[in-house]
């Protein structure tokens, strides 16, 4: 009798665990680990190459910090030196023929223009980044600002 009761109790537990196990195997949540089991090491993805074309990219909106169109491997940007500024500073562009850092970098946070680069703009890679040829993990649904303006105008009935 006792054994029968135990068996009856065990049936739903067994079923539940079976269903749960199936559920986990089907439920493929995308994580950094991907589908690698916890006790195994997943295969490392290849490190994507950095775009080094020196071709300036379109900005998606006017305030976007321009992308860096070249490699910046081992560029030293710290309190001792700033490798970026050896070409992009106001005084260096004649020699380097690189684009000068924009005038917004010569303003403090109140918008007042300074004689030199504002310290808060010193660490270039806070805003400016290189691009890689990595395959996008998800579809990019970003809409360019021009398209947004067109859309808004169309909604307003074409009236300007």
């Amino acid at each position, binding site marked *: 009798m006792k054994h029968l009761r135990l068996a009856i109790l065990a049936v739903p537990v067994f079923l539940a665990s079976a269903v749960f196990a199936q559920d986990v195997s089907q439920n493929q949540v995308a994580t950094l680990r991907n589908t690698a089991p916890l006790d195994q090491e997943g295969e490392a993805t290849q490190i994507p190459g950095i775009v080094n074309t020196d071709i300036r990219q379109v900005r998606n909106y006017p305030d976007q910090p321009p992308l860096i169109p070249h490699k910046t491997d*081992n560029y030293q940007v710290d309190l001792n030196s*700033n*490798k970026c500024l050896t070409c992009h*500073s106001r005084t260096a562009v004649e020699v380097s*023929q690189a684009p000068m850092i924009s005038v917004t970098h010569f303003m403090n946070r109140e918008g007042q223009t300074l004689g030199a680069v504002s310290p808060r703009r010193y660490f270039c890679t806070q805003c400016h980044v290189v691009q890689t040829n990595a395959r996008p993990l998800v579809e990019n649904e970003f809409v360019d600002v021009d398209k947004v303006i067109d859309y808004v105008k169309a909604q307003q009935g074409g009236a300007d």
Partner: protein
Amino acid sequence: MWGFLKRLWWIIRRPSAYFSLGFLTMGGFVMGIIFWGGFNTALEVTNTEAFCTSCHEMRDNVFEELKPTIHYSNRSGVRASCPDCHVPHNWTNKIARKMQASKEVWGKIFGTINTREKFLEHRLELAQHEWARLEANDSLECRNCHSDESMDITRQSKRAADAHERFLFTGEKTCINCHKGIAHQLPDMAAAEGEDHAGLLAPAHGEGLLASTRSYLGLSSD
């Protein structure tokens, strides 16, 4: 003392009474090989990465910084070791540099840079010595491997090709003028005179960018 020297000179001057001319000639020849070979072998031992990094001053500072750079780790597996860049390759200049390096032995004995703090304090001076040396010899140690004749600028990025065409091939600049800090970290460039490439030094009016950034971050040394 004078008497001893006089006696020594007399012995050297006197023809040998016991040893044959053949023995002396052959002996001199053999001993010459041993001494000269030994000297050069010892010299070459001091010209290795293992020797340089046997001191913690080099191992913990500059060698650590070299490791992530392209001259230590790269796709083709060719490595530039310490003496490839820091010691001239041809014999006369090598000996001259080795004699200069006796100053570095002095520094080692008296612990001039035996802590990280002392090293950082001296880093600018040490770097400037190397920059000056490479500027004076037209970046000879770079050119031991990087010849501008074999440099195919069509295989470089446009930016690099333009710069090399304008400055390297015309002889207007030498490698080290632009490629400072490629193998080791740069020192405090705000204190480096004549190196205001980046507008990092104090402009005529107001403080320099490095100094202002430091005070902005609350890291002023003073």
